[in-house]
């Protein structure tokens, strides 16, 4: 049994079925990429796992226990951390305060909070320089680092990242994704929703391609990277033309 297993998940927004039976799995130390066009259901999948949305049917199992019906703030405590799309950092708080909130559940253990903060500052030295600055004044890349750092404060076993490269320059995006690989290498399972398919497949172990609420392709990232169907499903043929 995998660390996180999702089976036949159906999610509705009103009458619209956003997820029409998604199944996927993640293991410790693995990066699982979820690819697909806008509106395919990638974000919905992550939001359902982290408890912000309720599925109509289907199962989400983490360490053999069902997550369905557990409130979002308790799911964080179980070891699943979610970096939402658009970063959603607390703009009116300082960098340090944002990180403190990431460690909200361990707030009584000041030593642990301090240690985790220190390790995040080592991972992202830029954040250490700006620790007393308001988060809203950071650049896009720094905000993304903060969002990831904030999510790591709770010491997650599963880290969910929603489009971490959004709005970042290619170089910055690469460096963020490299850090994601490092995080996974320490034993965290990572669910990575990305639009930058090449970069995502380059660092991922497995990948799923979602289209209109369904998984249309899945497999080893390295194999999918060369699969014509990925280019078709996700890149809409553009890649083929462009590379050719």
């Amino acid at each position, binding site marked *: 049994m995998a660390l996180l297993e999702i089976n036949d998940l159906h999610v509705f927004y*009103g009458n619209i079925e956003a997820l029409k039976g998604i199944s996927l799995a993640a293991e410790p130390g693995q990066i699982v990429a979820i690819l697909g066009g*806008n509106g395919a259901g990638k974000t919905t999948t992550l939001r359902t796992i982290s408890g912000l949305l309720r599925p109509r049917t289907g199962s989400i199992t983490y360490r053999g226990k069902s997550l369905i019906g557990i409130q979002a703030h308790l799911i964080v405590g179980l070891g699943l951390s979610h970096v939402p799309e658009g970063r959603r950092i607390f703009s009116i708080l300082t960098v340090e305060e944002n990180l403190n909130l990431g460690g909200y559940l361990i707030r009584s253990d000041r030593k642990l909070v301090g240690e985790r903060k220190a390790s995040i500052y080592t991972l992202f030295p830029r954040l250490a320089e700006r620790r007393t600055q308001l988060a809203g*004044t950071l650049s896009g890349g720094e905000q993304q680092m903060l969002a990831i750092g904030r999510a790591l404060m709770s010491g997650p076993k599963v880290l969910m990242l929603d489009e971490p490269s959004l709005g970042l320059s290619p170089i910055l995006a690469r460096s963020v994704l490299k850090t994601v690989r490092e995080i996974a290498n320490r034993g965290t399972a990572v669910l990575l929703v990305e639009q930058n398919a090449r970069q995502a497949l380059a660092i991922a172990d497995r990948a799923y391609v979602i289209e209109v609420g369904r998984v249309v392709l899945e497999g080893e990232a390295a194999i999918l990277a060369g699969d014509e169907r990925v280019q078709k499903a996700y890149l809409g043929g*553009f890649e083929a033309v*462009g590379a050719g």
Partner: protein
Amino acid sequence: MIDRLANHRVARTYVATRDQLARLPFWVRVIVILGAVGGSVLANGDDYVTAVGVSVATYAMLGLGLNIVVGYAGLLDLGYAAFFAIGAYTSALLMTQAHWNFFATLPLAVLFTGTAGAILGYPTLRLRSDYLAIVTLGFGEMTRITFNNWDYAGGPNGILQIPWPNFFGYELNTQGDFFIVGLALLAVAMIFAQNLDHSRLGRGWVAIREDEFAAESVGVPSLRLKLFAYVMGGMWGGLAGAFFATRIGAIDPTSFTFQLSVLVLIVIVLGGIGSLPGVIVGALVVVAMPEVLREFADRRLLIFAVLLIGMMLVRPQGLWPRIRRKPKPFYGLEEEESEDVADKILREHQVQMEERDRRHAAAGRQVPQRGEALLEVEGVVQQFGGLRAVDNVTFEVYRGEIFSIIGPNGGGKTTLFNCITGVQKPKRGKIRFDGRSVVGLRPHVIVSRGIGRTFQGIRLFKQMAVFENVMVGLYPRHRTMTWQAMLHTPGERNDEVRTLQESRRWLGFVGLESVAGRLATELSYADQRRVEIARALAAHPHLVLFDEPAAGMNPTEKLELVGIIRKIRDLGITVVLIDHDMSLVMRVSDRIAVLDHGVLIAIGKPAEIQQNPLVIEAYLGREEDLVEEQAEGA
């Protein structure tokens, strides 16, 4: 053949008659019911009951006025008593100091309250609705305190010995007289309110209540509509105040406290917010209950408070809820053959376009011809905090083309749309449409200039039927005036029928005529996007901006979308498109611009864009990413 024609004619007459009847009953119902109630109360001859009846009528009139503000426009007004006070004082002062006839004071009472409403409303109606509630509360208290401190108006003692009204020599001085006048005013108020509710204004108000941003962006002048509701509601309050003053014969500031504003609010909440019969029911409860249950009269505010909270929790729609008839789309309209529809749209659109071009030419402006720049974006910069979302972007869109803007998420595409449509004001740069700058205009003005749009996240009016959504899109094209709507004149009726007709054609145009009567939320994702397209087209724009119309569509639906976009272009409408689906963009676009990190990195024909290495890198990441990382991994 003749038979069919006859049937046709018979059917038409039938439908027309039924339509007539369907329209008549509200007048009839109001007059018959109020007449019957009034008659039986008067026949009873009990002065006490009649007096209670006058009070109910007064509260119902106040409730009707406040209902326009709260129920229709969705604005919480907690100082409604101020209008009542201004009306009462205006009328009373004119009668006692200038010895005017009561009926002669009414226009001035209404004018003064309307002016007060406009002066307060114009600057404050842009505020968030919770702030507005407090502002109106403050206004109510200020008005009361001002009257209390104003010696000319009698200060705390108020105005005494206000004469009875004189109606062409007949002095109205019994409770029965007042009851008749009260009922008559009430009947007029109800009929006006009903007509407004069922006009384009009513539709505009629903749209604003549901999604003010979307309403404004499809051409509904939200501030004007809110102001209108506020002033209109105030005028009714003023009229009721004048009536109250002459009936009681003496007024003082304690008659116009915050408590009165709350009581009137309770009238409409109990009865059902937005419901006309509900107002009467609410007025009955608020006035009659303390009379019937004498022993609880002292505790009536406590009971009302509990009722108010209980209603909001348990039965927010009120005792007699606003009835939402199942919308009957195109009821009574003639059937049209489908080729006919396309033809008519084309013809109507061409007429509109030519008319516009002529108007522009007459005004001495240069009209861009096909292939000339229709939209010019020049050096536009938009910044949020430290982030430059749009960085010095310059391009032109030519009349008649399909122009796409692509680029990675967060590249600044939607921000650019928002700048063009007036949702945001760019920090720097020029945006010209039809040769005229559109920077700094309100969104609904830009719509009327000829730019329509759809939204990335669908923003339809959820409580409205599909065809009503499209009718809201036709708002800028109505020709009738408000007074016509209030009186429901033949001109207004024709305008409504025309609107209905056109909304059906546009729905036919996007292939959704069959679901016109459904609620927008009942449709699939793809169909909702098509409704948005129809709504944007309904105003006959010169240029439409589609923000990710294909998101969430399956391949078949995307194919249909391509067809629709081409049909739109064939009408002569210029299309600007944001989308991520490359095959769709490459297939439909005449030209493509690529935005990355707010910077325009490429512009050109699809084939050129596909070959552009900068674009490939921005959009897909660098080729060596893959190689490099895999090498590292190995």
